């Protein structure tokens, strides 16, 4: 393994984090929050020195990395980013426990949005901005950012991109990795700015608009008020609901639209299925909650918002769906597992993976009935090779096993089965709120430190799509044989 190269890139990532910390620092200065100004300043200096030292001591001329190095780089970068990112919470004294602060940060970077803070308003402007900013950074991926804007061209940076970008098949859309990484970032930033403007036009204060937009873009879900976004005007709720849905679409679709290839953009089978799932879920939920709402507009708004929020794994809420009928809750649980599209900032299994899974099941039926029949699996008119298909099926198997193990480990704390399973699913799929004791108006504060560590691992496993973390933690990766 090319250890030097791995730590060199991790060092670069830490150094970038130091620069990113300047944004909440400036915010704290503007709002004269002395406790957080110092916390951000100290953290930024630590990160800059630590990152600088790492880069300095790992200078190497050997830039060759393979798939394994790509996975390890991504896993280590995310872990070190989370540790550094938790320091402002600890130093400012707002979240004194290290485990709690780390939980909050991991939840931020992985765009989960599960919180241990009971009253978020007491964090202040600076820390709240940092929480939501971590969503934005984690949504598109920090290493994608490094490849896009920082690193000198490396022939093999595709391995890093593949390890961090979500989805079953990651392919380049341009000859250069740099451009392939740059395009989604530009689309992401553009949509975020558009959202800020839209919210601001709806008479939302500028700070609230920015912070909410950051949390929406990363499909994260940290709110800055106790009741998530329920207190916002219905205009703002509609805007947020629609933008959540937009951020759950594969960004390649936007790229195709941007370069004028409308035909191929709307030919995307994943987009069609994504919208189909969304519309049918809204109808089911709408029919279930219609009786309990004051009028049709409210019922439609609540169901669209909740479905959009859960499906794109954002985790904002405008209603306590813990109180909804079992059928509406089951619908939401299914959406949690499916998640958004590949190549978006959303989490979950991803629509394209679910599609491949069903196609594989169909092919398997055909094979059982007629063993000699040749079955190929196609997606959007292209044949998917055997390796990708079996990659999806084994991913699903590990996914199910890990969710079961995590739910089992959570049961030590003695909460209900519903709480444990939904917490496991909500963290693994980066949604945030689940059902029962972790419902939309509750927090994760009541879990034991052990459970919080388990949930942090679940969030990282889910965001990085399992393999990077498992490979980085496997002893065989590090032992020389």
């Amino acid at each position, binding site marked *: 393994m090319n250890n030097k190269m791995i730590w060199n890139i991790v060092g670069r990532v830490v150094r970038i984090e130091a620069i990113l910390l300047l944004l909440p620092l400036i915010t704290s200065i503007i709002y004269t929050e002395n406790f957080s100004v110092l916390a951000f300043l100290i953290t930024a200096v630590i990160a800059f020195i630590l990152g600088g030292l790492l880069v300095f001591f790992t200078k190497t001329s050997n830039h060759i990395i393979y798939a394994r190095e790509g996975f390890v780089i991504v896993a280590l970068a995310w872990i070190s980013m989370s540790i550094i990112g938790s320091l402002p919470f600890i130093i400012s004294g707002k979240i004194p426990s290290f485990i709690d602060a780390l939980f909050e940060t991991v939840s931020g970077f992985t765009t989960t949005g599960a919180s241990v803070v009971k009253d978020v308003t007491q964090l202040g402007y600076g820390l709240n901005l940092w929480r939501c900013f971590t969503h934005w950074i984690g949504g598109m991926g920090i290493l994608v950012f490094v490849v896009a804007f920082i690193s000198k061209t490396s022939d093999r940076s595709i391995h890093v991109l593949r390890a961090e970008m979500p989805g079953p098949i990651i392919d380049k859309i341009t000859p*250069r990795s740099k451009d392939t990484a740059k395009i989604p970032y530009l689309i992401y930033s553009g949509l975020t700015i558009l959202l800020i403007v839209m919210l601001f036009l709806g008479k939302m204060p500028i700070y609230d608009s920015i912070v909410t937009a950051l949390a929406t873009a990363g499909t994260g879900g940290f709110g800055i008020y106790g009741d998530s976004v329920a207190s916002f005007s219905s205009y703002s709720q509609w805007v947020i609901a629609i933008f959540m849905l937009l951020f759950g679409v594969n960004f390649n679709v936007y790229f195709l639209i941007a370069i004028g290839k409308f035909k191929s953009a709307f030919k995307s089978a994943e987009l069609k299925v994504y919208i189909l799932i969304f519309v049918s879920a809204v109808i089911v939920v709408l029919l279930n909650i219609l009786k309990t709402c004051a009028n049709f507009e409210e019922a439609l708004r609540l169901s669209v918002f909740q479905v959009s929020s859960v499906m794109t794994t954002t985790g904002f809420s405008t209603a306590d769906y813990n109180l909804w009928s079992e059928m509406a809750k089951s619908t939401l649980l299914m959406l949690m597992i499916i998640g958004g599209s590949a190549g978006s900032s959303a989490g979950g299994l991803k629509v394209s993976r679910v599609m491949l899974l069903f196609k594989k099941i169909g092919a398997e039926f055909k094979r059982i009935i007629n063993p000699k029949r040749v079955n190929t699996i196609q997606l959007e008119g292209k044949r998917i090779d055997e390796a990708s298909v079996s990659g999806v099926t084994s991913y699903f198997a590990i996914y199910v096993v890990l969710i079961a193990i995590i739910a089992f480990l959570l049961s030590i704390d003695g909460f209900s089965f519903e709480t444990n399973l939904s917490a496991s699913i909500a963290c693994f799929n980066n949604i945030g709120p689940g059902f029962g004791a972790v419902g939309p108006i509750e927090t994760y504060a009541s879990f034991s430190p052990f459970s919080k560590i388990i949930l942090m691992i679940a969030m990282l496993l889910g965001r990085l799509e399992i393999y990077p973390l498992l490979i980085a933690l496997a002893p065989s990766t590090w032992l020389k044989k």
Partner: protein
Amino acid sequence: MDIIVAGCGKIGKSIIRSMLKENHNVTVIDIDRNVVASMTDTLDVLGIVGNCTSYDVLKDAGVKSADLFIAVTGVDELNMLSCYVAKKMGAKHTVARTRDYEYNRKSFDFVKDQLELSMTINPELMTAQFIFNLLKLPSATNVEMFSRNSFEVLELNVNKNSPLIGVPLLELRKKIPVNFIVFSVLRNGELTVPNGSFVLCESDKIGIIAQITQSHTLLKLLGFEQKQVKDVVLVGASKIAYYLSSLLIKSKNSVKIIEKDRQKCEDFATRLENVPTIICGDGTSHELLRENRITDASALVALTNSDEANILMSYYANSKGVGKVITKVNNKELGSISEELGVGSQISPKTIVANVLVRFARGLENVKGSKLETLYRLLGGKAEAVEFLILDDFKFKDVPIKNLRFNKNTLIAGIIRDRSCIIPCGEDVIKAGDHVIISTAGQSLYDIYDAILK
């Protein structure tokens, strides 16, 4: 520039690597899924799997906006057809590899024009011409020519008893009546651009620029033995051997060819008008080599398909005192081994082709003030010698060279004006219409302002 390369064979890969080094955006097409996967995993390219003559595949690869389309699959007809389709779809320039004898006659120009091909490349013919140039100046390991047969770049190994050793370059130039410039020195893998006080030592590799008419005398004065090549032995009756022997025979050398395969020997004999001596036998057999007194030849060129056999034969010939030994080596790893063994000049067709295409691609770049005409890379690709045509809008017309400021590692090695060659000194000026030769180490020149700063 956006470049598309169809076919990822030996030549294709070498072209792709060179184009990436030149900072072009490269898309590759190949029919084999695994080949494409290995390319996208190891190089920063976009890979498309499919038939390169298919409209849909070419569309996926972005042919419409491509600046250069290079077809180098194993089949000539496929290359020509895909270039034609690519051109019609909007590719600005197309290059096809055509290596069949039929497609390298004068009459092929008609087809070339009709297909609107910007260039055809024949790796075997290019290699043969390259070897032919090497044989003309046997003491150099690499010889390249600039336009109008004016200047020559030579790559030389400094031997043990050479008069070059131990004398500062400035004095050396005073001592020797012929004008020349040492523009780069490769010592222990490190490249330097020497100044006047630089002192050469044994086993340095140096790049020299001199006038063609004087290079023979220069080499003699510098203590390099100049034995005129008269009889050449070629081992392996390949396509390269065919083109090379016709060139050699035309310039009245005697050629002897050794080939194992009887059928190939006969094919070879029927294709050439003036049939050289063809011996059917194994080139690595000691008996055969002695029987035919190979060691008496003034040059041996090893061209079989086996790198190992080529290196072994060259090593043998070298130790027996054959004046000039040229070895074809395809495998880079083996190449560096034989380089260390020091078995004379080494050539690799894929590098020669890649260099030609790099030159072609640089010539396509839109530049002001000058136009790139020729480009040679030597000393393992680390140093470059480039010929620019100076255009009317050149900023420093008629400014004495001593008043110009140059980039650190560049030198003006020569100026060609009308038909005369000038090795410039401080008072000389550059005029529009001049051809200027600039040498550089460790960087790439795209236009003349990369070399002249002020």
